[in-house]
């Protein structure tokens, strides 16, 4: 599957606590704590198997009333989330629970 069609899911071993300035995430298998700022938290929240990177960029564009879709920011954010194991790629769109 082409990368631009790829969707993502949040990893399963995460404990999440919402804060006024972002999300605190504890990852059990690495015993690490991560902090996501509000923008990264929104991208993370969109990793529900429903959205491609382009769709996420469009949602951020709407949410923050940006001048243009935030494609680069979403690329960087998804790359970081993948590198940290907080999200995993999934091949096709999944319906929300």
């Amino acid at each position: 599957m082409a990368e631009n069609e790829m969707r993502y899911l949040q990893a399963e071993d995460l404990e999440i606590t919402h804060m006024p300035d972002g999300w605190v995430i504890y990852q059990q298998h690495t015993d690490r704590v991560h902090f996501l700022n509000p923008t990264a938290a929104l991208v993370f929240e969109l990793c529900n198997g429903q959205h491609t990177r382009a769709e996420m960029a469009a949602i951020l564009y709407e949410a923050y009333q940006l001048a243009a879709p935030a494609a680069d920011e979403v690329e960087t954010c998804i790359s970081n989330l993948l590198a940290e194991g907080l999200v995993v790629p999934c091949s096709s769109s999944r319906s929300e629970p």
Partner: protein
Amino acid sequence: MFVIPIRTLTREFRLHTDCRQAARVLAYIETRPKICGTALEPVDLLVQRLGEFYRLALPGSGTVEGTAFHLLDTMHRVVFTSFIEEVPGAPLIHAASVRVGGVPVLLVGAKGSGKTTLALHLMERGHVVEGDEHVAVRETDLVPRPRTLRVKASSSRFAPALARRIRRAPSIADGNGSLIYAVSPAVGGKPWRIAAMRAPCVVFLEPNHGGHTVAKPVSVDRAFNRLLGRCLLPVAKAPAAARLRRVAREAQAWEMSLGDLEGAERHLTAIAAAAKSVH
């Protein structure tokens, strides 16, 4: 009969013994600050002599037998466990807790970073010291762990005016045979009180032996990162980490390269004054 009180946030353990030798060893764990805002539940524990050994009746049920030093180790565990139970879900920051001009300041650092040395200096200079080991981050506030300062014999030179009183404090020998004193913060002349605090200044210490002391402010993200590196997290880690994030957001956080102690006091006074003006 000798009675050795050991206070936690909600309890006062009282070790009762008629043996002077045991009392002298167990005095190392004596802890009697004023615990603000709480009536302490008394827990009386009897230490009996068994020939060359002792028997300690533990809280609840059970006993432990051994040398006075073995009983001391056991009581350290009992008291620390009690403290953990009293602050459910709280991460423990490895920090000394002091009040500079009335402003709470946490001196956060690893073993050997100078927390106790700086606390001693501040105590000698008339500032209030509460502890030098842990500070618990509760749901809405923070509270120091009631425990005496553990001062190496060689460290008393950093507080020469208090040296005589430090050397009168209960002591045990470490693995190298050097004495470690259990020093009540009250030896500085101010009452030893354990009180909750909100939005303390947080100062991360790095040793700079023989140099000048330098301090610089740090961002919320860096403060959070450093707090995570200097704490014990309970089982529920995400909400505990969130409490640390709250501390980082509410605090004025600084990094201090700790060299000369006079310089450190000057920086802390300025940091506390700035925090007071903000609040």
